[in-house]
């Protein structure tokens, strides 16, 4: 039986992961297998983890303000490793003005402060099912 695997990652130097843990917990309770990388990961560490864990989705939690640079770097490295088919979502302190840029670089969804957990879970399910539909369920 297929159970979806989700990586929750904290790129960059911010030192708070309460949000990432809350989201990881909610996804666990929604029936997903959640791998958490812990704080202060480089994009390289995150992409290597995603590759070895063969995850179906990557969530980046960024509170430091460096979301544009970090997300871009993660997506670049994913392309380099040939795993850019894995959808990415970003959560954290993201100014609304930056959301279009994130979406343009390939991020599937952006969840700002105050997003309901139920909304995140629902969107995650939608993204995963889009992925299954486009790859024929493999």
């Amino acid at each position: 039986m297929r159970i979806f695997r989700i990586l929750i990652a904290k790129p960059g130097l911010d030192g708070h992961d309460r949000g990432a843990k809350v989201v990881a917990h909610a996804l666990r309770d929604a029936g997903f297998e959640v791998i958490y990388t812990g704080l202060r990961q480089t994009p390289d560490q995150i992409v290597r983890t995603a590759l070895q864990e063969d995850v179906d989705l990557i969530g980046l939690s960024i509170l430091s303000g460096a979301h544009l640079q970090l997300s871009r770097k993660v997506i670049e490295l994913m392309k380099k490793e040939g795993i850019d088919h894995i959808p990415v979502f970003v959560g954290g302190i993201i100014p609304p003005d930056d959301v279009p840029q994130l979406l343009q670089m390939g991020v599937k969804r952006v969840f700002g402060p105050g997003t309901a957990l139920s909304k995140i879970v629902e969107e995650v399910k939608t993204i995963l099912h889009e992925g299954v539909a486009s790859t024929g369920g493999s």
Partner: protein
Amino acid sequence: MDHKLLAKLITKIENSPELAPEIIQRFPESRSKVIGFTGSPGVGKSSLIDQVIKQLRDKDLSVAVVAIDPSSPFTKGAFLGDRIRMRDHFVDEKVFIRSMASRGALGGLCDAAFDVVKLLECSEFDYVLVETVGVGQSEVEISNLADLTVLVLSPGFGDEIQMLKAGVMEIADLYAINKSDLPESDTLYTQLLAFLSLAGRGEKQVCRTSAYTQDGVQELVERIEDLWNSLCKSGMLDERRRKRLQYHAEHILRRLVQKAVHSVKGCKTENPYEFVQVALSRLCETHLKKDGQGGGI
């Protein structure tokens, strides 16, 4: 093997165990040193493995880690958090770490563990380290999978009465008293030696380690290597490998039997033994038709 391919194949085995024989047969047989790490939650298994990886990498040996955490009995979800402790090795090309959820298995491993370890051996890692879920007293399946098993203990384990209990205390080839930087570890060490002396075992089986200060980890790795070599020389290793094969076969059979039992429909009997006859004949029908390859195992 390329890590990306390896990762994909592990997923396949995990989700569709019937594909395992075909996947594993693609690669030439190879043998790694398979070391199990077990112990209660929070004793520092993952942190200790992190330090063991460091020692092995200093010798330029390649390492694969399978780290298992429990699945929820309610939602089937899991939080896989062993990997966090091994972050120094994420970008090392010769280290492959895979987190797995127990998916309802009760022995401390997951159902795919035997096949996944086999695949990792085929990938020619020098060492395959298997971390069980945090165990209680009776989850001993790791001893059927690993060449040798390290039981990780830490202060707070309990008094010597806990050591006398059967189960996980018996399966260890080596005991690592982790968090040995804490003063309470002296008492645990004394208790453990007293316990082991009852069974005619002693200091050679015990290492005092601290994943935090890194003390004792080098010694633990040396003990693991020495013991593995002596098991190899004495023929015990081959015996353990034969035992592993039997357990692996038992796992596969159990899955096939479950499938066969659930596939029996329209059997009106109220006699369970008659039901078994039907299920058995169903099992044989499905799996005895091809020349030893099994019909869709």
